[in-house]
Each structure stands twice: as C-alpha cells, then as structure tokens.
C-alpha cells in the first residue's frame, strides 16, 4: 500500500543518468518535489512524458522540482535498463533527474505500484498528493483535471490541494 497523504516521505540515495547521486537532500531549496515512479517502456509513461517535462519547465522557477525514479526489473525487462534510461533521458531532453532504483527498495518504501505514479512532497517532505499526473493519458488537450499541476499550485501557495489522491493509471511496476 502506498504511503499515505500527510505522511513523511522516505529518503533515498539513487544514481542518476548523469552519474550523480540523488537524495531528497538534493532538493533542499525546493518548496515542492514531485517524485514520479516511471520507466522507459510503459506506454502510459511515454504518453505523459511531454507533460512531465513541461511541468518541470513550468514550475522550476516557482520552487518546485521533479524527479523520476525507475524501479523496474531490468533483467526481465531490458528496455528498462540503466543504459536505456540514459538514452531515453538524452533523446527526450529530460531536464529533471532520472534515477535508478535497482534494488526496488525505494518503490517498496513508497508503496508504489504503477508507472507513472506521483508522490508530491511539500517543503517538509510530507506527501500532499498521490496518484496520476492528470485525468487523460491519451490526449493532453482533453485533460479536465490537472491533478499534479493543481496540487503544485496549492502547495506552492501554502494551501491544500483540493484533490489529494487519485488512483495511479499506468503499467504495474515490474518486480524482481
């Protein structure tokens, strides 16, 4: 089961595609951090990817950051290898860290079960929103509820997101 809204998010130390290690401490100056469990091959991630990139771009100056974590079993799903993470990040021009949860410990600690699956953390690293990025993986122009954007707006303004939890929509995390 996923960690609950209002709980303190677990920290981690994971290697990024840029060779650096990332923990929540890397975002110490960020008022909000969107931790998104992701991967290379899931069509739902691929469909939402441009929107993830746009969210990082739109919210960086407002004090937020996004980090994508790939916890998939690369032995069984070679498309999700670290090497392919590097390629994907470069091809798509990710402007956010993309890190590898090779042991799957972080996915277990967060209770993540899908990709993509969002945990939005506030300045105290408490979970303020959990679930899907928005309500329409298929068509960005047809989105009616921008769950993550709306939650970011609320958290950055010191308020409460009107929607704090939605079912994550996507592929299941591929466990070892």
């Amino acid at each position, binding site marked *: 089961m996923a960690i609950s809204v209002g709980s303190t998010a677990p920290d981690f130390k994971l290697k990024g595609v840029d060779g650096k290690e990332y923990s929540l401490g890397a975002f110490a100056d960020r008022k909000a951090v969107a931790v998104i469990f992701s991967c290379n091959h899931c*069509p*739902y991630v691929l469909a939402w990817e441009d929107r993830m990139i746009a969210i990082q771009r739109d919210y960086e100056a407002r004090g937020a950051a996004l980090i994508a974590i790939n916890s998939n079993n690369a032995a069984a799903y070679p498309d999700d290898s670290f090497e392919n993470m590097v390629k994907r990040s470069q091809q798509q021009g990710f402007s956010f860290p993309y890190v590898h949860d090779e042991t799957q410990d972080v996915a277990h600690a967060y209770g993540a079960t899908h990709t993509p699956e969002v945990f939005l953390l506030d300045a105290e690293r408490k979970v303020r929103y959990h679930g899907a990025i928005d309500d329409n993986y298929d068509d960005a122009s047809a989105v009616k509820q921008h769950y993550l954007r709306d939650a970011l707006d609320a958290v950055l303004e010191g308020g409460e997101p009107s929607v704090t939890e939605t079912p994550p929509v996507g*592929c299941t995390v591929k466990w070892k």
Partner: protein
Amino acid sequence: MRIEFLYYADCPSHEEALARLKGAMAAEGVEADIHIIEVKSDQEAQQLRFIGSPTIRIDGEDIDPEGLEGQQYALTCRVYTKRDGRPSPAPETALIRARLRGEIQ
C-alpha cells in the same frame, strides 16, 4: 475471419482496446467471434508470441506488424503509435478498421 484478442490483466488498456475492436467490427460490418485470451505467465507469453497487451490478430496476423520489430515476448503493456506520432497503450480504432478491411498502411 479469425479474430484474436490477447491481453495481460495488469495492463489497464485492454478494456478500452476490446471496446475499440468491437466498435470497429460493428462499423465494418464484420461478424465474427473474438477469441479472447488472457496471457498469465512468461511461459504463455513465449508460447503465444505475445509482445504485450493488448495484441489483436486477424487471421493470425498482428494488426501492427511494425510494432513487433525488436520486441521480446513478455507480460507487459504494448506501445502503439498513433497517426500523429504519439505513443498510446491501445491501438486506434482507425487502425483496427483498416486491418479489418484488409488494408495495409
């Protein structure tokens, strides 16, 4: 016409894809049974040549043969490419209809 619909239950696009298949069949006036096969294990994926969910075959031919290139048999979600180039977890109805008509894009 033999129509097969193979899916992996953990991939949520199969319900939408099956609805699109049924709608496409109705639009094209195709009356045929849909053989629905749930792929439950890696072994079944190998045996059924299943590269991901959902997979639709018409008379044994995958509706998206280009999508098969370089793919391994696995219990996973399949990526389709829409006409506008965007990725999708389910085939577009237009693709299904074209295949039912016997058209090759």
